[in-house]
């Protein structure tokens, strides 16, 4: 077990896959010579050479499309979209081409490509470089979507994504790149499998990405006996793990780094409600960001992302009253 930063866990996972499988290649903007704008491809060009590790022109549509073609013809390309927002100039290739190719070939091909993108708020990059944008890739039959929350899951999910025979989108919480954690390179995390991080009986907290640590802090600080589930895979999410937990706790909160409108957590709430209605002790609810662009100012951005304090408040309220807690911005009369 080594301790490494999340960005090193990613580099290591890429290197380990490239060693294990010569069809793995990576390309993207400044991923080769510069070893990645976030240093997530350290050492790769040196070890694997310029055929398999390539810098691209600034053209996400071209290189995402090139990944589709290369994947179909036997490679396992991993491309990097530097910031998730940039997929807005290339979405077509991932969701309209890659995700549908198996279907449109009558099952005669597969598209084992991985699209990695840094995502989320917290480091002062402003409204066009800080969103999570899961919604862009959700609702896409054929596409899997994962989101690590620490060095271990970054390592294991990247390896699982590369090994998967279908296109996989990896949303990497940018704010975590420098975080350290233990990594067991032998540990597998399957796509579609949630991680049960803390057992508890009072309420089930479902979350992912950088919200995992924040929820853990909230739980620890509040002393609430919450069960903490790191979803890890968003599509397809682990229904079994969530449903089993809520069967036990009778309560559910989904904590999302995504706007109240259009966030991914509604689906968890809706599914759990539909399936476990009579076993619920209180209304499942969501804790989200407000429906605003991500603000740059540090104090504002720190409130934008759900805070441990606010999560603790809402958990306590829900358990105590059985009622749906108010958002901080409605409490403060801000919207």
């Amino acid at each position, binding site marked *: 077990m080594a301790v490494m930063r999340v960005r090193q866990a990613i580099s290591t996972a890429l290197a380990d896959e490239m060693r294990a499988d010569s069809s793995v290649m990576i390309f993207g903007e400044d991923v080769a010579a510069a070893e990645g704008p976030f240093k997530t491809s350290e050492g790769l060009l040196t070890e694997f050479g310029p055929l398999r590790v390539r810098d691209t*022109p600034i053209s996400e549509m071209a290189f995402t499309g090139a990944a589709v073609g290369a994947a*179909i013809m*036997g490679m396992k390309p991993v491309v990097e979209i530097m910031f998730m927002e940039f997929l807005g100039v290339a979405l077509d290739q991932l969701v*309209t081409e890659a995700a549908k*190719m198996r279907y*449109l*070939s*009558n099952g005669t091909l597969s598209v084992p490509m991985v699209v990695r993108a840094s995502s989320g708020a917290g480091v002062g990059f402003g409204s066009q470089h800080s969103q999570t944008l899961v919604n862009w890739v959700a609702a896409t039959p054929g596409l899997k979507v994962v989101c690590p929350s620490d060095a271990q899951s970054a390592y294991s999910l990247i390896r699982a994504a590369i090994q998967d*025979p279908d296109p996989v989108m990896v949303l990497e919480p940018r704010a975590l790149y420098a975080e350290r954690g233990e990594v067991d390179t032998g540990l597998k995390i399957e*796509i579609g499998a949630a991680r049960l991080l803390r057992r508890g009986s009072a309420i089930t907290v479902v979350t992912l990405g950088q919200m995992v640590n924040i929820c853990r802090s909230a739980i620890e600080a509040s002393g609430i006996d919450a069960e903490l589930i790191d979803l890890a895979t968003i599509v397809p999410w682990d229904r079994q793990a969530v449903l089993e937990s809520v069967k036990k706790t009778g309560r559910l909160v989904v904590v999302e780094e995504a706007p109240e409108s259009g966030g991914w957590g509604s689906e968890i709430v809706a599914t759990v409600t539909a399936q476990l209605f009579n076993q619920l002790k209180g209304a499942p609810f969501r804790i989200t960001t407000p429906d605003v662009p991500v603000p740059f100012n540090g104090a504002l951005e720190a409130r934008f992302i759900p805070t441990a304090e606010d999560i603790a408040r809402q958990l306590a309220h829900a358990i105590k009253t059985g009622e749906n807690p108010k958002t901080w911005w409605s409490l403060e009369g801000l919207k």
Partner: protein
Amino acid sequence: MNTSMQRRVDVQENEIARYERMVEIREVEEQVFELFAAGEVRGTTHLCQGQEALAVGLASILRPTDTVLATYRGHGIALALGLTPEVVLGEVMGKAIGCCGGVGGSMHMCDMSLGLLPTSTIVGAGIPIAAGTALAFQTQGVDNVGVSVFGDGTTNIGAFHEGLNLASIWKLPVVFICDNNVYGEYSRIEVTTPIEDLHMRAESYKMPHFALDGMDVEAVRKGVKEAVERARSGGGPTLIEAKTYRFAGHSRADQGLYRPEGELEEWRKRDPIKVTEDSLVARGVLTLENIASIKSDMKRIIQEVIATCNAAPEPALAAMFENIWTPPKALQA
């Protein structure tokens, strides 16, 4: 060798087969038009009458291990590459025997064994994908070639620019073929595009380029051969502009009322089938009688295929749930 591979070999080896294939494409397209007009097929369709020489010329040069990214206007290229009229018409008619099992439709042709990747309906999408197949070949060290065929109007979309630039900077073994059939939907190319010779755009990428007569299958073969050989031997990509003309409307609904008077008639004088016929007859390869019987045979054959397709089963309801992805292990358990 299965039928479709034999069909591919035929167009590679035999000029009469090439002529027959062009006649086949024409007949299939005419019949597809009739089927839609009669309301027997749903959705939409994009026909390629007038563009048969490009399809057949291209198929006659490529190896089955080369890849082709074509478009919604893909029946001709599919047939040329070797797909049978059954699997093409079967798909158009949404039958289980179709090349996509009936879930794709007219715009989605595919046969991986012949190098035809799924045709895309998004303008320009095939350009980077073709470059990607070439990237695989280059990285694997094999001498296969990727090809993207797209229209004149497509040279205005971002994916064209990005795809050609990427192919050039990586010197990928890919051939870009712009099938300039004068129109993008209902718009003449000059309404949307400030330059006339579209292949000149390759200059922006320091890429070799030229135009060829897309109505003459031999001219197509010569040009494609040059570009494919360059790609295969490590010389990088080429942009070819094939000057053709779309005899039919853009899609099902279009009657082509926007054409300048006489334009269609002028181009019909250079109908690619006629051009080939003239050459074959002039060189004594075929007689006029041969030609007449090829055409009447083809009409009969395609009618039989349509009858087969009509009688063929619909896809099972389960077909719509298949071939989407490999369920993650965690879900399989």
